[in-house]
């Protein structure tokens, strides 16, 4: 028997287990997946939890519920990968031999990377919403907060779900209006990027919304430290922003296991071919989702599109065929804008988000880069799609892994 080993049973790893158990011959291949958690979190829900729009139970399910029959799930911490001997060592000193390895260990927040971010003030006046604990603690804080300066902040790029902090700012505006206290809250959006988004057309649309919602933007802010005593963040250029409540996205890093294994970049992301998803570490090691260093969004939609292509490429690798250079950076994200509306963006490595209709050209029903109620319904429906289709490796109808240009208003910018 041959061994295929998947590290991480989050969105990417679970999808790969589901895809591969269907495609790999059971008589020839054992399939094993390792994760230290017992809970599978619906991470997009962390955005809604602080505003009491979702409850804790909406975002948590047992991890084994989504691992198909015929896949061996091991609940353990991973020590390191010994790539030269094709072995993964677990913390409990057991070892797992593999023929093919898929790294799907994702990314996590690393608040310890920013001076002064952690301390007694963590989860008192400084919060993240990228973890279940962070989102829940922030919810409890917001329930009793009486107002003041709310600063929504990104520490450094890349981060998981790059639009989430913007959505947080939009939803905060909506939340405080509904509570009748918007006049008591000043919302500031602080980013290391030059604008709300890195691509011009989306920035234009989002800047308009930020202005409309009276959210101040501080761009080009690279944080050096948090001065919790005086409640301010300070950037390397000496610029300061004061807060009463800081909601930050700390530095995002890949798993420390990657560093212990002796590869990974300065943020512990796995060097990966951006078109084939084969790692640059060794031919029999592949990587998917947030764990890679490819220049695509760290997002569930990206993992979903990658999974279809990676499944093909693993089968090709086993058959000794050339890998398909097919992944084009396709990402598809809803952007919640508050008051029951959302935007939708669909883009890839080369094509920036533009206006148009999705998924049916000229029809929709979803509108690209335009604030509509229908898009918001799409975002809410996505939770059902996630639990019932996405992580089970089912194809989402009418949405292909490679980005479709039909229905998009493409101009000279291509």
């Amino acid at each position, binding site marked *: 028997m041959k061994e295929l080993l998947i590290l991480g049973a989050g969105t990417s790893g679970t999808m790969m287990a589901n895809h591969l158990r269907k495609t790999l011959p059971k008589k020839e291949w054992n399939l094993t997946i390792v994760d230290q958690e017992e809970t599978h979190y619906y991470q997009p829900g962390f955005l809604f939890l602080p505003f009491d729009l979702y409850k804790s139970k909406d975002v948590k399910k047992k991890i084994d519920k989504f691992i198909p029959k015929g896949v061996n799930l091991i609940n353990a911490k991973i020590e390191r990968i010994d790539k030269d001997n094709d072995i993964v060592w677990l913390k409990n000193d057991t070892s797992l031999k593999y023929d093919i390895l898929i790294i799907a260990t994702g990314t996590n927040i690393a608040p310890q990377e920013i001076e002064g971010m952690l301390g007694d003030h963590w989860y008192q006046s400084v919060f993240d919403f990228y973890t279940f604990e962070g989102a829940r603690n922030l919810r409890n804080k917001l329930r009793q907060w009486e107002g003041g300066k709310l600063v929504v902040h990104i520490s450094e*790029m890349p981060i998981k779900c790059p639009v989430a902090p913007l959505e947080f700012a939009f939803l905060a505006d909506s939340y405080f209006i509904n509570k009748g206290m918007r006049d008591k809250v000043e919302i500031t959006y602080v980013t*290391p990027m030059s604008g709300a*988004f*890195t691509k011009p057309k989306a920035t234009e649309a989002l800047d308009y919304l930020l202005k409309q919602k009276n959210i101040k933007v501080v761009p080009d802010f690279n944080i*050096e430290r948090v001065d919790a005593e005086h409640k301010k963040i300070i950037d*390397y250029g000496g610029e300061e922003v004061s807060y009463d409540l800081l909601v930050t996205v700390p530095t995002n890093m890949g798993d420390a296991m990657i560093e212990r294994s002796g590869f990974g970049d300065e943020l512990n992301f796995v060097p990966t071919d951006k078109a084939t998803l084969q790692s640059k570490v060794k031919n029999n090691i592949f990587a998917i989702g947030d764990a890679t260093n490819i220049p695509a*969004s760290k997002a569930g939609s990206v993992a979903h599109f990658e999974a279809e292509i990676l499944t093909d490429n693993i089968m090709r690798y086993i058959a000794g065929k050339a890998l398909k250079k097919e992944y084009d950076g396709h990402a598809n994200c809803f952007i919640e804008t508050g008051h029951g509306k959302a935007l939708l963006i669909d883009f890839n490595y080369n094509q920036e988000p533009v206006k148009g209709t999705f998924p049916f050209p000229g029809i929709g029903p979803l509108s690209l880069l335009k604030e509509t109620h229908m898009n918001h319904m799409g975002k809410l429906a996505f939770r059902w799609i996630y639990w019932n289709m996405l992580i089970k490796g089912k194809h989402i109808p009418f949405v292909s892994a490679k980005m479709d240009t039909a229905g998009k208003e493409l101009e000279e910018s291509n």
Partner: protein
Amino acid sequence: MVVEKIYGEVCVTCNEQGYLTDLNQWTKDIGLEIAKEEGIEMTDKHWEVIDYLRDQCKKQVPLSIRKIGKSGVVSIKEFYQLFPKGPLKISSRIAGIPKPVSCI
């Protein structure tokens, strides 16, 4: 959109944000002219950073402020002192390499 620009007596092509579109058109004199536009007086330390950036770019290594801070060439703090405001954007322009993209 690509525009032509003249630095000294040399004509180079730039994008609309003033970044050279061809790494090979760059010379130290052109870098010096761009630095003037950015209001930066170049020292040996500045050039050391520029050399590092060009070298990394040729090796197709994606650049970030964190990466430069760990390079051993300058600390992040020094990098900000050398190229105030947006150090990576400004230094990349002087180095004649593309504007670094932060991943989205």
